[in-house]
């Protein structure tokens, strides 16, 4: 059990509890965090769960794979610590992680 802090583009903060093993997208959707759509249901195929991880947490989330890289490259709000939420599987180490949401999903 841990907590993830989602910060919307207008700075509204949401705290969501999670069990290690679920994806950041799933946690957001389960907690009805506005600004994450997850249209493809976690297949890395739509780009609508784009999150921007804060610098200090980015290394804990692993590296994006080729498919993810391809989808991320299509979003105009791409940042250096962008990830697709469905591809970030949470671990206990991510307790307290802060992620920012883009202004729009693709």
């Amino acid at each position, binding site marked *: 059990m841990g907590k993830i802090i989602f910060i919307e583009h207008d700075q509204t903060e949401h705290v969501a509890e999670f069990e290690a093993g679920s994806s950041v997208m799933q946690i957001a959707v389960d907690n009805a965090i506005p600004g994450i759509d997850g249209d493809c249901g976690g297949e890395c195929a739509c780009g609508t769960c784009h999150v921007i991880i804060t610098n200090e947490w980015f290394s804990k989330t692993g590296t994006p794979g080729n498919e993810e890289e391809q989808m991320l490259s299509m979003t105009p709000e791409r940042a250096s610590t962008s990830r697709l939420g469905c591809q970030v599987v949470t671990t206990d180490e991510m307790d307290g992680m802060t992620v920012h949401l883009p*202004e*729009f999903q693709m």
Partner: protein
Amino acid sequence: MPTLSRMFDDFPSRMINATSRVVPMHRQIQGLKLLMSAKRTIFGSSRPMPEFAEKPIPDVNTLALEDIDVSNPFLYRQGQWRAYFKRLRDEAPVHYQKNSPFGPFWSVTRFEDIMFVDKSHDLFSAEPQIILGDPPEGLSVEMFIAMDPPKHDVQRSSVQGVVAPKNLKEMEGLIRSRTGEVLDSLPLDKPFNWVPVVSKELTGRMLASLLDFPYEERHKLVEWSDRMAGSASATGGEYADEEVMFNDAADMAWSFSRLWRDKEARHAAGEEPGFDLISLLQSNEDTKDLINRPMEFIGNLTLLIVGGNDTTRNSMSGGLVAMNEFPEEFKKLKAKPELIPNMVSEIIRWQTPLAYMRRVAKQDVELGGQTIKKGDRVVMWYASGNRDERKFENPDQFIIDRKDARNHMSFGYGVHRCMGNRLAELQLRILWEEILKRFDNIEVVEEPKRVQSNFVRGYSEVMVKLTPKGKEAG
């Protein structure tokens, strides 16, 4: 002889691209038309333009699996498509039809398999076409929906700004006032055809704005698009005259080049570039010389007008048809207007305005116990995936508060996912918000007329009768 004939096949694009600096584009296309007709006279046509005559389609359960042909352009019109695709999903989810009028092709009909093919652009190429059949010979325009990475990525990113959410925020007010204007002008005392008056009109106005196209000539955009997507050889549509298509391509080339040169001149004279498509192309390093590559230039403009035309139009009409088939849902909507965004996704799922996208296998691929051979055509039937009972509960029901409506496949998945999805959703959301402000009921008073195509799932006529707000009987 065959070699010489084949030489002609690549020739048109190369010739046009090579001579574009000295010969106006529309003249080149007129020249191309003469060249292709000379080729047909000398070598005979390698691709005769098929013409489709409507015949009653047999009950799918009377057919052997191998005889099922879902490329029939009347399947949707005759209401047979549900039974045909259900049988394929259940008995042959990866199905080979070796003898269709469009040549042999594979059909992939389950949600999960379609997702796999759509995501695997390394195994399945979108080139050279995303429709089942071929365009008229010599008219192979190049568009990024039918390009693989990395070329696709470069071209898509240069134009996606025009429909990016940031731009949409600016457009919302304009869309709302136009929608209101059109709805306020509708006749209240007699039935009328919703398709030309509302669906076509609203999408035509939107296209003209995105392109900054002369507003009073916006009907041209709609007509070009209808004929491009409705070619008999490509989609089994009603347009079988190649001459008309070449003339359209020449007209488009002329209009769009004029638009391009005019923008260039205004920009050179110090005018701020607008946020329309051509200004965006001109201000991007990779596409600022696109006019010198005419087949790509026309291709990408065609893509944008076709992409924004049939799709949104038929979702605008399809929503009404759905509400009339499922009247309880309209009551639900009036009681809970906050359901509109989810309802928009459900309309797009239920209607699936484009039935499929096509791919070509780049290598042998095992899928669903079948071996798809390198070079085979593979059709991903989104219309079937959206009705797959393995994915959606009661898939044929229209349920405006369906939980997983957003998971629909109508926008495609992977790198070719629809670029205009947010604009489409915005247009539909505003349309329904404005409808609810004005009308208590919109009754479909005759059986809608559906178009002939294996690609576009649309309506040519939806006769409706409006009941203004506060005037409902009882």
